[in-house]
């Protein structure tokens, strides 16, 4: 049983670390602000969620595990809100980059492409 829990921990934390790697690479390599925001806010929250999932078997008590989940939920809600706010600020200051700027503007005015 302990071995199974350890395997769950190793698998989930490794996957979480991989998502952090993906988020960082996206932040460094993507061409403009909005694509970087896209890479960062999704990959990081999934990475944190997988790390929390991996730590749950090691939490020891039900209360400790519940607290870990609460941390993740708070980060999820905050990350979703903040990513929208940052995207709006980047658009308003015209710093979305040429491609991201024009495509998002077009989508906002004409609706999604069909």
């Amino acid at each position, binding site marked *: 049983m302990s071995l199974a829990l*350890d395997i769950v921990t190793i698998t989930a*934390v490794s996957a979480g670390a991989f998502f952090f790697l993906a*988020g960082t690479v996206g932040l460094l390599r993507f061409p403009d602000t909005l694509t970087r925001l896209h890479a960062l806010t999704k990959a990081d*929250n999934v990475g*944190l969620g997988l*790390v929390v999932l991996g730590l749950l078997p090691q939490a020891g008590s039900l209360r*400790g595990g519940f607290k870990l989940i609460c941390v993740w939920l708070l980060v999820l809600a905050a990350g979703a809100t903040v990513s929208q706010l940052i995207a709006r600020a980047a658009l308003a200051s015209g710093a979305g980059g040429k491609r991201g700027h024009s495509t998002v503007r077009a989508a906002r005015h004409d609706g999604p492409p069909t």
Partner: protein
Amino acid sequence: MTEFMTAALGFILAMLGLGLIRVLRGPDDADRMMAAQLIGTGGIAALLLLGGVTGVPATVDVALTLALLATFASIAFVKKDGANAPESPESR
């Protein structure tokens, strides 16, 4: 298990260090703020792993506080940035 979690902790910290390159290169303030948000999220993951390694339960509270602080830092950035933006009249 402790060794593995320490290794994962070091790896995530290395990712945060790489994210600092984006703070250095910019080009926009929003990019730098995103790197700060990466440090917030990754710092929370690192703190939770540290709590698993050391067995100190208070690290979870520190992670919660960091989550709040990272959020408010981003909101402060947006409010400052939106003060002179034409599209957000509600910020005046």
